């Protein structure tokens, strides 16, 4: 059974600081996704990571994938308040499973 964990579940950080959210999963996967969810809104796709060593960056967010360790990271650089949201990772085993992590609620404080 595919299980996806995220760490931490809650994160408060000050503007300008850096931090990393971790996503661990239990079985070999084909794709890993990162999503953002703003309060009261639906999911927004951030990144799709397809292969070992994949790294993608968009603004202050950078995601990476280590398939051997079954680990993905979402790194936040010089956080700003607009990044406050809940971040989900999701893991796909093609044609079989698509499982969300529990989400990490990020609050960026001024």
């Amino acid at each position, binding site marked *: 059974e595919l299980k996806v964990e995220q760490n931490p579940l809650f994160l408060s950080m000050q503007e300008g600081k850096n931090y990393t959210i971790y996503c661990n999963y239990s079985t070999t996967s084909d794709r890993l996704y990162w999503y953002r969810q703003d*309060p009261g809104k639906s999911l927004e796709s951030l990144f799709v990571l397809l292969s070992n060593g994949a790294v993608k960056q968009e603004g202050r967010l950078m995601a990476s994938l280590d398939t051997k360790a079954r680990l993905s990271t979402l790194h936040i650089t010089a956080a700003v308040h607009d990044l406050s949201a809940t971040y989900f990772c999701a893991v796909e085993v093609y044609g079989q499973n698509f499982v969300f992590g529990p989400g990490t609620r990020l609050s960026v404080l001024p």
Partner: protein
Amino acid sequence: EAGVTQFPSHSVIEKGQTVTLRCDPISGHDNLYWYRRVMGKEIKFLLHFVKESKQDESGMPNNRFLAERTGGTYSTLKVQPAELEDSGVYFCASSQSQGLNTDTQYFGPGTRLTVL
């Protein structure tokens, strides 16, 4: 505490048939969301209930899809008649309240629908 549950986990039907998916949110959660992921594509929002009322149904693809949440508890999503392009995984999520710190959405395991 029980999480969001969905039933069935898998459904295989023929084109033209009807299928009803069910979602049981976490007890006490007013908000209930339906999402769909068609194979190889991104997750798409379908609709959002607040209690028994449809808050936002802008993502519903067409009138073959009907969602209900009688009594503000569980929700059903009916597809009638089903078409091939309806195949995918349907996710349900719930959250406690909007606009407060309790609005994190908790996702169910999804229902995988295959239309042949």
